[in-house]
Protein backbone atom coordinates (compact mmCIF):
# COMPACT_ATOMS: atom_id res chain seq x y z
CA UNK A 1 0.00 0.00 0.00
CA UNK A 2 1.39 3.38 -0.93
CA UNK A 3 2.08 6.07 1.65
CA UNK A 4 -0.31 8.29 -0.29
CA UNK A 5 -3.14 5.83 0.29
CA UNK A 6 -2.24 5.44 3.95
CA UNK A 7 -2.24 9.22 4.43
CA UNK A 8 -5.51 9.63 2.56
CA UNK A 9 -7.25 6.96 4.65
CA UNK A 10 -5.90 8.46 7.89
CA UNK A 11 -7.08 11.89 6.86
CA UNK A 12 -10.54 10.64 5.93
CA UNK A 13 -10.97 8.84 9.25
CA UNK A 14 -9.76 11.78 11.29
CA UNK A 15 -12.06 14.14 9.38
CA UNK A 16 -15.00 11.81 9.88
CA UNK A 17 -14.36 11.40 13.60
CA UNK A 18 -14.00 15.17 13.91
CA UNK A 19 -17.41 15.61 12.32
CA UNK A 20 -18.84 13.67 15.29
CA UNK A 21 -17.67 16.26 17.79
CA UNK A 22 -13.99 16.10 18.88
CA UNK A 23 -11.62 18.91 17.89
CA UNK A 24 -9.45 17.83 14.99
CA UNK A 25 -6.27 18.65 16.94
CA UNK A 26 -7.27 16.18 19.67
CA UNK A 27 -7.48 13.32 17.17
CA UNK A 28 -3.87 12.21 17.62
CA UNK A 29 -3.09 8.53 16.88
CA UNK A 30 -2.52 7.74 20.56
CA UNK A 31 -5.72 9.46 21.75
CA UNK A 32 -8.24 6.95 23.09
CA UNK A 33 -11.78 6.84 21.77
CA UNK A 34 -13.01 7.00 25.34
CA UNK A 35 -11.29 10.29 26.09
CA UNK A 36 -12.63 11.67 22.80
CA UNK A 37 -16.15 10.56 23.81
CA UNK A 38 -16.42 8.40 20.71
CA UNK A 39 -18.82 5.53 21.36
CA UNK A 40 -20.36 2.58 19.54
CA UNK A 41 -22.83 4.79 17.67
CA UNK A 42 -19.95 6.88 16.29
CA UNK A 43 -18.10 3.74 15.20
CA UNK A 44 -21.25 2.51 13.45
CA UNK A 45 -21.41 5.81 11.58
CA UNK A 46 -17.70 5.66 10.75
CA UNK A 47 -18.12 2.12 9.42
CA UNK A 48 -20.76 3.40 7.05
CA UNK A 49 -18.47 6.15 5.75
CA UNK A 50 -15.61 3.69 5.31
CA UNK A 51 -17.83 1.27 3.42
CA UNK A 52 -19.07 4.07 1.22
CA UNK A 53 -15.57 5.36 0.52
CA UNK A 54 -13.48 2.19 0.28
CA UNK A 55 -15.99 -0.62 -0.11
CA UNK A 56 -14.82 -2.47 3.00
CA UNK A 57 -17.13 -3.62 5.77
CA UNK A 58 -16.29 -3.18 9.44
CA UNK A 59 -18.33 -5.28 11.81
CA UNK A 60 -18.95 -4.77 15.51
CA UNK A 61 -16.55 -7.67 16.20
CA UNK A 62 -13.81 -5.98 14.13
CA UNK A 63 -14.18 -2.80 16.16
CA UNK A 64 -14.26 -4.57 19.53
CA UNK A 65 -10.48 -4.40 20.08
CA UNK A 66 -10.09 -0.82 18.91
CA UNK A 67 -9.24 1.67 21.64
CA UNK A 68 -7.33 4.53 19.99
CA UNK A 69 -7.54 6.67 16.87
CA UNK A 70 -4.43 4.87 15.58
CA UNK A 71 -6.10 1.46 16.12
CA UNK A 72 -9.10 2.66 14.13
CA UNK A 73 -6.93 3.76 11.22
CA UNK A 74 -4.96 0.48 11.33
CA UNK A 75 -8.19 -1.54 11.32
CA UNK A 76 -9.38 0.16 8.15
CA UNK A 77 -5.97 -0.08 6.46
CA UNK A 78 -5.81 -3.80 7.25
CA UNK A 79 -9.14 -4.30 5.53
CA UNK A 80 -8.15 -2.55 2.32
CA UNK A 81 -7.43 -4.86 -0.57
Amino acid at each position, binding site marked *: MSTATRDAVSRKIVETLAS*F*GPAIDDLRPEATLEELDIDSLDIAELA*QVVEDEYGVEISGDDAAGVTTVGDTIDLVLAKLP
Partner: protein
Amino acid sequence: MTRRRVVITGVGAVTPLGGARDLVQRWVAGESGIRDGEGACLEFEPTDTMTPKEARRADRFTQLGIAASDAALQDAGWADGLPYDPDRIGCVIGTGIGGLATIEEQHDTLRDRGPNRVSPLTVPLMMGNALPGQVSMRHGLLGPTFGVVSACAAGANSIGTAMRLIQYGDADAVVTGGGEAALTPLSRAAFGSLDALSESGISRPFDRRRDGFVMGEGAGVLVLEDRERAEARGAEILGELLGYGATADAHHLTAPEPQGRGATKAIQQALLDAELLPEDVDYVNAHGTSTPLNDRAETFAIKAALGEHAANVPVSSTKSAIGHLLGAAGAVEAIVTVLALRESVAPPTLGLEEPEEDLDLDYVPGAARELVSRGSNGHAGRLVALSNAFGFGGHNAVLCLGVRT
Protein backbone atom coordinates in the same frame (compact mmCIF):
# COMPACT_ATOMS: atom_id res chain seq x y z
CA MET B 1 -53.25 7.39 52.65
CA THR B 2 -52.59 11.10 52.49
CA ARG B 3 -51.30 12.10 49.11
CA ARG B 4 -48.26 14.32 48.99
CA ARG B 5 -48.67 17.81 47.59
CA VAL B 6 -46.84 18.69 44.40
CA VAL B 7 -45.31 22.07 43.64
CA ILE B 8 -43.67 23.61 40.61
CA THR B 9 -40.19 24.92 41.37
CA GLY B 10 -38.82 25.55 37.89
CA VAL B 11 -40.02 26.15 34.36
CA GLY B 12 -38.29 26.36 30.99
CA ALA B 13 -39.53 26.64 27.45
CA VAL B 14 -38.50 27.17 23.86
CA THR B 15 -41.32 28.71 21.86
CA PRO B 16 -41.92 30.93 18.83
CA LEU B 17 -41.98 33.84 21.30
CA GLY B 18 -38.82 32.80 23.17
CA GLY B 19 -38.36 31.28 26.63
CA ALA B 20 -41.05 30.82 29.27
CA ARG B 21 -41.07 34.31 30.75
CA ASP B 22 -40.48 36.03 27.41
CA LEU B 23 -43.44 34.16 25.98
CA VAL B 24 -45.79 35.37 28.69
CA GLN B 25 -44.54 38.93 28.53
CA ARG B 26 -44.76 39.10 24.75
CA TRP B 27 -48.14 37.37 24.52
CA VAL B 28 -49.59 39.64 27.23
CA ALA B 29 -48.31 42.59 25.18
CA GLY B 30 -50.28 41.27 22.21
CA GLU B 31 -47.35 39.99 20.16
CA SER B 32 -47.75 36.98 17.89
CA GLY B 33 -44.98 34.47 17.14
CA ILE B 34 -46.69 33.26 13.98
CA ARG B 35 -44.91 34.04 10.71
CA ASP B 36 -46.08 32.90 7.28
CA GLY B 37 -48.72 30.68 8.82
CA GLU B 38 -46.42 28.80 11.20
CA GLY B 39 -45.09 29.13 14.72
CA ALA B 40 -41.42 28.26 14.25
CA CYS B 41 -38.74 28.75 16.91
CA LEU B 42 -36.66 30.94 14.63
CA GLU B 43 -34.36 32.18 17.39
CA PHE B 44 -33.45 28.67 18.58
CA GLU B 45 -29.81 27.66 18.11
CA PRO B 46 -29.16 24.10 19.35
CA THR B 47 -25.48 24.77 19.99
CA ASP B 48 -26.31 27.59 22.42
CA THR B 49 -27.06 24.87 24.97
CA MET B 50 -25.56 21.71 23.46
CA THR B 51 -22.19 20.66 22.13
CA PRO B 52 -22.17 19.91 18.39
CA LYS B 53 -22.04 16.23 19.28
CA GLU B 54 -25.06 16.44 21.60
CA ALA B 55 -26.97 18.37 18.96
CA ARG B 56 -26.33 15.81 16.20
CA ARG B 57 -27.39 13.03 18.55
CA ALA B 58 -30.86 14.58 18.88
CA ASP B 59 -33.78 15.21 16.55
CA ARG B 60 -35.06 18.78 16.72
CA PHE B 61 -37.91 17.85 19.09
CA THR B 62 -35.33 16.51 21.52
CA GLN B 63 -33.05 19.52 21.02
CA LEU B 64 -35.91 21.85 21.90
CA GLY B 65 -36.72 19.70 24.95
CA ILE B 66 -33.11 19.57 26.14
CA ALA B 67 -32.87 23.36 25.97
CA ALA B 68 -36.17 23.73 27.83
CA SER B 69 -35.10 21.24 30.50
CA ASP B 70 -31.76 22.99 31.01
CA ALA B 71 -33.69 26.22 31.58
CA ALA B 72 -36.17 24.52 33.94
CA LEU B 73 -33.46 22.92 36.08
CA GLN B 74 -31.61 26.22 36.25
CA ASP B 75 -34.83 27.95 37.27
CA ALA B 76 -35.40 25.37 40.01
CA GLY B 77 -31.95 26.07 41.43
CA TRP B 78 -30.66 22.65 40.37
CA ALA B 79 -27.82 24.01 38.24
CA ASP B 80 -25.14 23.09 40.78
CA GLY B 81 -26.44 19.60 41.43
CA LEU B 82 -29.53 17.56 42.11
CA PRO B 83 -31.15 18.30 45.48
CA TYR B 84 -32.34 14.72 46.04
CA ASP B 85 -31.16 11.15 45.60
CA PRO B 86 -31.08 10.70 41.79
CA ASP B 87 -32.95 7.40 42.22
CA ARG B 88 -35.87 9.49 43.49
CA ILE B 89 -36.00 11.91 40.55
CA GLY B 90 -38.03 10.90 37.50
CA CYS B 91 -38.41 12.25 33.98
CA VAL B 92 -41.72 12.09 32.11
CA ILE B 93 -41.77 14.07 28.86
CA GLY B 94 -44.26 13.53 26.08
CA THR B 95 -44.46 14.17 22.38
CA GLY B 96 -47.22 13.93 19.84
CA ILE B 97 -45.13 12.52 17.02
CA GLY B 98 -41.43 12.19 17.87
CA GLY B 99 -38.51 12.56 15.48
CA LEU B 100 -40.43 13.15 12.29
CA ALA B 101 -37.71 15.13 10.50
CA THR B 102 -35.31 12.24 11.11
CA ILE B 103 -37.78 9.72 9.71
CA GLU B 104 -38.36 11.81 6.59
CA GLU B 105 -34.66 12.46 6.01
CA GLN B 106 -33.69 8.83 6.47
CA HIS B 107 -36.52 7.66 4.28
CA ASP B 108 -35.08 9.85 1.54
CA THR B 109 -31.71 8.19 2.13
CA LEU B 110 -33.26 4.72 1.97
CA ARG B 111 -35.00 5.51 -1.31
CA ASP B 112 -32.12 7.35 -2.96
CA ARG B 113 -29.02 5.56 -1.65
CA GLY B 114 -30.20 2.19 -0.38
CA PRO B 115 -30.58 0.49 3.01
CA ASN B 116 -26.86 0.41 3.79
CA ARG B 117 -26.74 4.19 3.92
CA VAL B 118 -29.49 4.68 6.50
CA SER B 119 -27.88 6.30 9.54
CA PRO B 120 -27.32 4.21 12.69
CA LEU B 121 -28.61 7.27 14.55
CA THR B 122 -32.05 6.94 12.95
CA VAL B 123 -33.75 4.95 15.70
CA PRO B 124 -32.22 6.78 18.68
CA LEU B 125 -33.21 10.11 17.10
CA MET B 126 -36.71 9.26 15.90
CA MET B 127 -38.02 7.29 18.87
CA GLY B 128 -40.75 9.08 20.78
CA ASN B 129 -39.02 8.51 24.12
CA ALA B 130 -35.72 10.03 22.96
CA LEU B 131 -36.41 13.29 24.78
CA PRO B 132 -36.99 11.90 28.30
CA GLY B 133 -34.12 9.45 27.72
CA GLN B 134 -31.73 12.24 26.77
CA VAL B 135 -32.82 14.54 29.61
CA SER B 136 -32.41 11.72 32.11
CA MET B 137 -28.88 10.98 30.79
CA ARG B 138 -27.93 14.65 30.68
CA HIS B 139 -28.81 15.30 34.30
CA GLY B 140 -28.34 11.83 35.80
CA LEU B 141 -32.00 11.34 36.71
CA LEU B 142 -32.42 7.69 37.74
CA GLY B 143 -36.08 7.51 38.77
CA PRO B 144 -39.12 6.57 36.64
CA THR B 145 -38.38 7.83 33.12
CA PHE B 146 -40.57 7.46 30.05
CA GLY B 147 -42.55 9.29 27.40
CA VAL B 148 -46.28 9.75 27.17
CA VAL B 149 -47.98 9.56 23.78
CA SER B 150 -51.41 11.15 23.44
CA ALA B 151 -51.08 13.51 20.48
CA CYS B 152 -51.85 17.08 21.51
CA ALA B 153 -52.67 16.07 25.08
CA ALA B 154 -49.21 14.51 25.62
CA GLY B 155 -47.69 17.47 27.47
CA ALA B 156 -50.59 17.68 29.93
CA ASN B 157 -50.85 13.90 30.37
CA SER B 158 -47.10 13.87 31.13
CA ILE B 159 -47.45 16.51 33.82
CA GLY B 160 -50.46 14.74 35.32
CA THR B 161 -48.59 11.43 35.37
CA ALA B 162 -45.53 13.09 36.89
CA MET B 163 -47.74 14.62 39.58
CA ARG B 164 -49.10 11.17 40.48
CA LEU B 165 -45.56 9.73 40.70
CA ILE B 166 -44.79 12.29 43.40
CA GLN B 167 -48.17 12.11 45.13
CA TYR B 168 -47.92 8.35 45.55
CA GLY B 169 -44.27 8.32 46.56
CA ASP B 170 -42.66 6.78 43.48
CA ALA B 171 -40.48 9.87 43.14
CA ASP B 172 -39.64 13.00 45.16
CA ALA B 173 -39.25 15.15 42.06
CA VAL B 174 -39.99 14.75 38.37
CA VAL B 175 -38.78 16.71 35.36
CA THR B 176 -41.78 16.77 33.05
CA GLY B 177 -43.34 18.39 30.00
CA GLY B 178 -43.47 17.96 26.25
CA GLY B 179 -41.55 18.62 23.06
CA GLU B 180 -42.49 18.76 19.39
CA ALA B 181 -40.87 19.70 16.09
CA ALA B 182 -43.18 18.70 13.27
CA LEU B 183 -42.81 21.61 10.87
CA THR B 184 -41.83 19.20 8.11
CA PRO B 185 -43.08 18.58 4.56
CA LEU B 186 -44.79 15.29 5.44
CA SER B 187 -46.48 16.70 8.51
CA ARG B 188 -47.72 19.81 6.70
CA ALA B 189 -49.09 17.65 3.90
CA ALA B 190 -50.66 15.13 6.28
CA PHE B 191 -52.40 17.65 8.54
CA GLY B 192 -53.36 19.54 5.38
CA SER B 193 -55.00 16.46 3.90
CA LEU B 194 -57.05 16.17 7.07
CA ASP B 195 -58.27 19.76 6.60
CA ALA B 196 -56.98 20.41 10.11
CA LEU B 197 -54.57 23.21 9.17
CA SER B 198 -55.65 26.79 8.70
CA GLU B 199 -55.65 27.76 5.04
CA SER B 200 -55.57 31.43 5.93
CA GLY B 201 -52.57 30.84 8.18
CA ILE B 202 -54.30 32.81 10.94
CA SER B 203 -54.81 31.42 14.43
CA ARG B 204 -57.97 33.01 15.81
CA PRO B 205 -59.54 30.68 18.36
CA PHE B 206 -63.27 31.11 19.03
CA ASP B 207 -63.67 33.57 16.12
CA ARG B 208 -66.45 32.87 13.63
CA ARG B 209 -63.89 32.89 10.77
CA ARG B 210 -61.48 30.36 12.30
CA ASP B 211 -60.44 27.79 9.71
CA GLY B 212 -58.04 25.36 11.38
CA PHE B 213 -54.94 25.36 13.52
CA VAL B 214 -51.62 26.98 12.78
CA MET B 215 -48.83 24.51 13.46
CA GLY B 216 -46.04 25.51 15.81
CA GLU B 217 -43.04 23.85 17.42
CA GLY B 218 -41.35 24.06 20.77
CA ALA B 219 -40.96 22.50 24.18
CA GLY B 220 -41.96 23.16 27.75
CA VAL B 221 -40.44 21.55 30.83
CA LEU B 222 -41.39 21.90 34.50
CA VAL B 223 -39.63 20.73 37.63
CA LEU B 224 -42.17 19.24 40.03
CA GLU B 225 -41.26 18.47 43.62
CA ASP B 226 -42.84 17.06 46.74
CA ARG B 227 -43.92 20.23 48.55
CA GLU B 228 -42.43 19.31 51.92
CA ARG B 229 -39.03 18.61 50.44
CA ALA B 230 -39.11 21.73 48.26
CA GLU B 231 -39.92 23.87 51.31
CA ALA B 232 -37.25 22.15 53.38
CA ARG B 233 -34.58 23.02 50.82
CA GLY B 234 -35.86 26.60 50.64
CA ALA B 235 -36.90 26.42 46.99
CA GLU B 236 -38.91 29.22 45.47
CA ILE B 237 -42.34 27.76 44.80
CA LEU B 238 -43.80 29.03 41.55
CA GLY B 239 -47.14 27.31 41.92
CA GLU B 240 -48.91 24.17 42.98
CA LEU B 241 -50.33 21.39 40.86
CA LEU B 242 -53.69 20.98 42.57
CA GLY B 243 -55.51 18.51 40.37
CA TYR B 244 -55.50 16.39 37.25
CA GLY B 245 -58.29 14.86 35.21
CA ALA B 246 -57.92 12.58 32.19
CA THR B 247 -60.65 10.98 30.10
CA ALA B 248 -61.33 9.71 26.59
CA ASP B 249 -64.07 10.59 24.12
CA ALA B 250 -64.27 7.12 22.52
CA HIS B 251 -66.00 8.94 19.70
CA HIS B 252 -63.80 9.59 16.65
CA LEU B 253 -60.10 9.38 15.73
CA THR B 254 -59.74 13.08 15.05
CA ALA B 255 -63.00 14.93 15.84
CA PRO B 256 -63.94 15.83 19.39
CA GLU B 257 -67.25 14.61 20.75
CA PRO B 258 -69.46 17.54 19.65
CA GLN B 259 -70.86 18.32 23.09
CA GLY B 260 -67.42 18.02 24.72
CA ARG B 261 -68.66 15.35 27.12
CA GLY B 262 -65.25 13.77 27.61
CA ALA B 263 -63.64 17.17 28.12
CA THR B 264 -66.37 18.11 30.59
CA LYS B 265 -65.61 15.05 32.68
CA ALA B 266 -61.88 15.74 32.56
CA ILE B 267 -62.48 19.27 33.92
CA GLN B 268 -64.80 17.93 36.61
CA GLN B 269 -62.25 15.29 37.60
CA ALA B 270 -59.45 17.84 37.80
CA LEU B 271 -61.57 20.00 40.13
CA LEU B 272 -62.62 17.02 42.23
CA ASP B 273 -58.97 15.94 42.46
CA ALA B 274 -58.10 19.46 43.62
CA GLU B 275 -61.02 19.46 46.08
CA LEU B 276 -62.26 22.68 44.50
CA LEU B 277 -65.58 23.92 43.17
CA PRO B 278 -66.31 25.54 39.79
CA GLU B 279 -66.58 28.97 41.45
CA ASP B 280 -62.98 28.66 42.68
CA VAL B 281 -61.68 28.85 39.11
CA ASP B 282 -60.23 32.26 38.27
CA TYR B 283 -58.90 31.57 34.75
CA VAL B 284 -59.05 28.90 32.06
CA ASN B 285 -56.18 28.43 29.63
CA ALA B 286 -58.13 26.80 26.83
CA HIS B 287 -56.93 24.20 24.38
CA GLY B 288 -58.43 26.68 21.85
CA THR B 289 -56.97 25.30 18.63
CA SER B 290 -58.81 27.63 16.21
CA THR B 291 -60.43 24.61 14.53
CA PRO B 292 -64.18 24.87 14.00
CA LEU B 293 -64.90 21.68 15.96
CA ASN B 294 -62.57 22.03 18.95
CA ASP B 295 -63.46 25.56 19.96
CA ARG B 296 -67.17 24.80 19.90
CA ALA B 297 -66.92 21.48 21.81
CA GLU B 298 -64.49 23.01 24.32
CA THR B 299 -66.81 25.94 24.95
CA PHE B 300 -69.65 23.52 25.66
CA ALA B 301 -67.39 21.53 27.98
CA ILE B 302 -66.35 24.62 29.98
CA LYS B 303 -69.99 25.63 30.32
CA ALA B 304 -71.11 22.15 31.35
CA ALA B 305 -68.31 21.73 33.89
CA LEU B 306 -68.35 25.20 35.43
CA GLY B 307 -72.09 25.81 35.16
CA GLU B 308 -73.26 29.38 35.75
CA HIS B 309 -69.78 30.37 36.87
CA ALA B 310 -68.45 29.77 33.32
CA ALA B 311 -69.73 33.21 32.24
CA ASN B 312 -67.55 34.91 34.89
CA VAL B 313 -64.25 33.25 34.05
CA PRO B 314 -61.69 34.65 31.60
CA VAL B 315 -60.80 31.96 29.04
CA SER B 316 -57.94 32.47 26.59
CA SER B 317 -55.89 30.47 24.11
CA THR B 318 -52.10 30.50 23.97
CA LYS B 319 -52.39 29.09 20.44
CA SER B 320 -53.64 32.49 19.30
CA ALA B 321 -50.08 33.76 19.88
CA ILE B 322 -47.79 30.86 18.99
CA GLY B 323 -49.93 28.32 17.13
CA HIS B 324 -50.42 24.70 18.10
CA LEU B 325 -47.32 23.04 19.56
CA LEU B 326 -49.01 19.60 19.41
CA GLY B 327 -47.39 17.35 22.03
CA ALA B 328 -45.62 20.32 23.61
CA ALA B 329 -48.76 22.45 23.80
CA GLY B 330 -50.09 21.13 27.12
CA ALA B 331 -46.72 21.66 28.79
CA VAL B 332 -46.01 25.14 27.42
CA GLU B 333 -49.57 26.18 28.24
CA ALA B 334 -49.35 24.87 31.82
CA ILE B 335 -46.17 26.93 32.24
CA VAL B 336 -47.81 30.00 30.75
CA THR B 337 -50.78 29.53 33.05
CA VAL B 338 -48.64 29.44 36.18
CA LEU B 339 -46.61 32.47 35.13
CA ALA B 340 -49.75 34.42 34.15
CA LEU B 341 -51.31 33.68 37.55
CA ARG B 342 -48.12 34.90 39.20
CA GLU B 343 -48.52 38.19 37.31
CA SER B 344 -52.27 38.21 38.07
CA VAL B 345 -53.00 38.61 34.40
CA ALA B 346 -55.32 36.92 31.91
CA PRO B 347 -53.48 37.00 28.58
CA PRO B 348 -55.62 37.76 25.53
CA THR B 349 -57.02 35.56 22.78
CA LEU B 350 -55.40 37.30 19.81
CA GLY B 351 -57.23 37.63 16.52
CA LEU B 352 -60.69 37.14 18.03
CA GLU B 353 -62.84 39.85 16.52
CA GLU B 354 -66.04 38.23 15.28
CA PRO B 355 -67.81 36.06 17.81
CA GLU B 356 -69.88 33.02 16.85
CA GLU B 357 -73.32 32.20 18.12
CA ASP B 358 -73.14 29.94 21.22
CA LEU B 359 -69.44 30.72 21.65
CA ASP B 360 -70.14 33.34 24.26
CA LEU B 361 -67.60 32.88 27.05
CA ASP B 362 -65.29 35.68 28.11
CA TYR B 363 -62.39 34.82 25.77
CA VAL B 364 -60.39 37.94 26.71
CA PRO B 365 -60.42 39.31 23.15
CA GLY B 366 -57.92 41.94 22.12
CA ALA B 367 -56.03 42.85 25.26
CA ALA B 368 -54.79 41.24 28.48
CA ARG B 369 -56.66 41.91 31.67
CA GLU B 370 -55.92 41.84 35.39
CA LEU B 371 -56.97 38.66 37.17
CA VAL B 372 -58.63 39.04 40.53
CA SER B 373 -58.73 36.20 43.02
CA ARG B 374 -62.30 35.29 43.87
CA GLY B 375 -61.20 34.02 47.21
CA SER B 376 -64.28 31.86 47.42
CA ASN B 377 -64.37 28.58 49.30
CA GLY B 378 -61.80 29.85 51.78
CA HIS B 379 -59.05 30.28 49.21
CA ALA B 380 -58.31 33.97 49.66
CA GLY B 381 -54.93 35.05 48.32
CA ARG B 382 -54.74 32.30 45.80
CA LEU B 383 -55.45 32.25 42.07
CA VAL B 384 -56.67 29.01 40.55
CA ALA B 385 -56.66 28.06 36.88
CA LEU B 386 -57.44 25.18 34.61
CA SER B 387 -55.24 24.27 31.64
CA ASN B 388 -56.99 22.16 29.02
CA ALA B 389 -55.37 19.86 26.46
CA PHE B 390 -57.11 17.53 24.06
CA GLY B 391 -55.66 15.24 21.42
CA PHE B 392 -56.46 13.27 18.28
CA GLY B 393 -57.51 9.86 19.47
CA GLY B 394 -60.04 11.43 21.83
CA HIS B 395 -57.67 12.18 24.72
CA ASN B 396 -58.67 14.83 27.27
CA ALA B 397 -56.25 16.04 29.93
CA VAL B 398 -56.93 18.90 32.33
CA LEU B 399 -54.59 20.33 34.93
CA CYS B 400 -55.68 22.46 37.86
CA LEU B 401 -52.99 24.92 38.97
CA GLY B 402 -52.79 27.29 41.90
CA VAL B 403 -50.58 30.25 42.73
CA ARG B 404 -50.36 32.24 45.96
CA THR B 405 -50.70 35.92 45.21
